[in-house]
């Protein structure tokens, strides 16, 4: 069987950055496996700008950002295969991939980095009541149709979900001649970046209905009407608050989910982010299998993805040199009150660098609160946050010496100022 030091599953922003991270730490025997016809992943269809402000100190469009990393990969002559689909991974790190030229190939990898990105929550998953007409699709689907195929999915569009993809598509569709009738968001707050509220909704007078959801879709063959209603604190529709829109298209922007099947099949434990449970080296419960980017937890900014992926690549490089010690699982990190998920799920103090890095999201927007770090029941840090929202991932660094032991549990929670 063929062997490879490092196999990277996914040639998007995470896969490319991980490859570069590993290469620059001395790993040369790398292969990136990408299912699509191009490197760059989802960035290729994100033709809008807003990428790269941290990474490159420039504001780039998706394809431009992708090209920066494609160039880095090509300059280093890191091998990659396109139109290549990974059908399985084994716990012994045998990766099986397939394409029309090589057929089915099994490779024994010494290390694997999972960088397979995410997929969109869709109408089926949320079970929108009503008919089953054509014209209901996800924002990413509409984006692909529009930006790659030049196809407009509808003329009168309603959008469910105020996540960034939905807001970006509101503007995109308006610019291409569609009428966007409104955006409904089930939470009392918007889930997109402020800047997108301005440049995608306010700029085009597209109304935003907070605390609303779609309660019925009507249409025999093609969508004809969307009915929305206000919801209460339990997110249940309030009768009598319905509004109707004559829309031929409903676009859903209701969340992204890590595309983690390959690792799920191995029974590798997952965290509440729905990606793999990893330690501070982005290593899963199987030594030498790493995860990074949106397949680990869904990011808001590609700049954070590439930073994380580079670190995962560097960790894989250390692993391959035998410099990443075997798992000891000494400290567990638990999302506490008000926290949706935390990455990493485990830390080994002996191996960590000087800083402990925590990435997490809160469950709901809050003002004047503290993020509380408790270690074995004792508060070790309290950080004041004037504003904190779920749609922005928090990245917090704490010095390693803040912990007085290398066993136990760190709990991160959200508390009111008064507590």
């Amino acid at each position, binding site marked *: 069987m063929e062997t490879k030091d490092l196999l990277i599953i996914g040639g998007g922003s995470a896969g490319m950055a991980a490859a570069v991270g590993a290469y620059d730490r001395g790993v040369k025997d790398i292969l990136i496996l990408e*299912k699509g016809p191009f490197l760059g992943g989802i960035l290729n269809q994100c033709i809008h700008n807003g990428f790269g402000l941290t990474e490159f100190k420039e504001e780039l469009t998706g394809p431009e950002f992708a090209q920066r990393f494609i160039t880095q990969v090509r300059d280093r002559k890191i091998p990659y295969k396109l139109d290549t689909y990974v059908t399985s991974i084994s716990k012994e790190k045998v990766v099986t991939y397939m394409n029309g030229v090589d057929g089915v190939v099994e490779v024994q990898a010494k290390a694997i980095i999972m960088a397979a990105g995410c997929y969109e929550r869709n109408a*089926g998953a949320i*079970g929108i*009541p009503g008919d089953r007409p054509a014209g209901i699709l996800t924002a990413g689907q509409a984006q692909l149709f529009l930006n790659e195929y030049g*196809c407009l999915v*509808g003329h009168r569009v309603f959008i469910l979900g105020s996540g960034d993809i939905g807001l970006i598509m509101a503007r995109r569709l308006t610019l291409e001649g569609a009428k966007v009738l409104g955006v409904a968001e089930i939470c009392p707050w918007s889930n997109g970046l402020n800047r997108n509220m301005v440049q995608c909704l306010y700029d085009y007078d597209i109304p935003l209905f907070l605390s609303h959801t779609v309660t019925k879709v009507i249409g*025999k063959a*093609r969508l004809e009407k969307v009915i929305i209603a206000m919801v209460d604190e339990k997110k249940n529709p309030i009768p009598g608050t319905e509004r109707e829109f004559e829309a031929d298209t409903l676009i859903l922007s209701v969340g992204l989910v890590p595309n983690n099947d390959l690792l*799920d099949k191995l029974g590798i434990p997952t965290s509440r982010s729905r990606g793999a449970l990893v330690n501070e080296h982005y290593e899963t419960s199987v030594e030498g299998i790493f995860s990074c980017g949106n397949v680990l937890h869904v990011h808001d900014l590609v700049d954070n993805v590439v930073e994380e992926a580079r670190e995962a690549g560097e960790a894989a490089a250390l692993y391959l040199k035998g410099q990443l010690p075997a798992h000891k699982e000494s400290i567990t990190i638990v999302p506490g009150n008000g926290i949706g998920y935390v990455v990493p799920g485990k830390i080994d103090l002996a191996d960590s660098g000087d800083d402990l890095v925590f990435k997490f999201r809160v469950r709901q927007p809050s003002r004047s609160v503290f993020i509380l770090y408790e270690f074995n029941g004792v508060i070790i840090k309290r950080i004041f946050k004037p504003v904190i929202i779920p749609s922005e991932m928090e990245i917090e660094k704490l010095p390693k010496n803040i912990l007085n032991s290398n066993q136990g549990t760190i709990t991160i929670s959200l508390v009111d100022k008064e507590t």
Partner: protein
Amino acid sequence: MEDVLIIGAGAVGCFIARSLSRYELSVLVLEKENDVGDVTSMANSAIAHSGYDPEPGTKKAKFNVLGNKMMPLLCQELDVSFGKVGTLTVAVDDDQVPLLADLLARAQLNGVEAKLLGPAEVKALEPNINPAVKGALLCPTGGIVNPFTLTAHAMENACDNGVKLHLSETVLAVSRLYDHYVVKTDKDTYEAKVVVNAAGLHADEIAAMIEPVSWKILPRKGEYYVLNHYAPGLVNHVLFPLPSAKGKGVLVTMTTSGNYLVGPSSEVIDDKEDLATDTPTLASVRAQAQSLVPNIPFGEQIRVFSGLRATPSTHDFIIEASQKYPDFINVAGIESPGLVSSPAIGEYVAKDLVGAVLPLKEKAAYTKTIKKYVCPLSLHRDERNALIQANPDYGEMVCDCEKVTLGEIKDALSRSVPCLTVKALKKRTRVGFGKCQGGFCQPKVVRLLADYYHISPLEVLYDKSGSAIILDEIKKEAK
């Protein structure tokens, strides 16, 4: 002049066509939807019932049991996934236990193998069953089947043997002229010696074109949850509650593709076109299912859907020539256990009813099998490599979630039953059936269909007429 004109290409129409295709007869099938098996036949529990449930002596009982016996061989001939997993009808409180004995007696009268199990035995077979289980009726001959390919492959076999199929054609009027029938559709007019009415939900309307009928078809809606493939073993058999006047109740089952199906509800409605799902009904389905299996992972939901049963006002299948004419044959009210009964109904209608009015001369060149569909993922690595070397399309993944390759899609497009819509391709190959529900692959499928049929993406339909996915092109000014 056709020998036989069949109205409707659901499971029943397809199997009647297949049974007739063995004989030297010219057979035409007219289907109003854009695909075969596009109404009730694609929205059901996908169960090959064993036959313990129908009242003994009814047509339902007769054809259920016959059909169930035909399934294993038939599914081999037609390359259809079939799993003889067995069914368990479960009692969850003491009041229900005597009813199990009644069901056992009924099974025996119907000639169906059945056995009563005590609670410990049930728990051993089904670790996730409601711990309050009091007993169950095990019917080992019951199973699960792929309803989409059962229907489509039966019709493919029929077409391979010379049956003509017209999709997207609606019958508007049927009248008798001397010794034959004139059938007028929205596209053309045909003449036929024999008409078979297998028009499902609309069978009463078709029947009434020839003579007044005393029976009616009532649409009875059932709503379902579909759960993703995930760790196997939630249930090992098809689980039923005790049946009631409303029907067999909410079942929990795996499907031939490794998903789980939970449902259906049961509600007679007015509108034969109403396929809407609603929250209260689904909540009720959920609650009922949880009384069988308390820990169903509803978080793994990938879809909800509803189907309409063609419920006959007579409560039994209507499979008979019309009052006036022995050559106008009604096959109506084929609600549950319709799917498993359809091959047996097909044989009976062909041999006994059509055979009563037309000579049945066997074709010399008749084949009862279809060309097997290649499923690359089920092959060993070397076989797969040989396949991909011969045809690189089998190495190109189109649907990541369900692992469907371009080769399989092109194969489906090339068969004698056309795949005109996105939904048709979905039913044949599973492309778009997975957790992302076509999020990644639907644009590719639209483009494949546009290229194959040399049409614009704007003309590609999801399923029904008017269900275009793309409404416009952009940058027309640049052309």
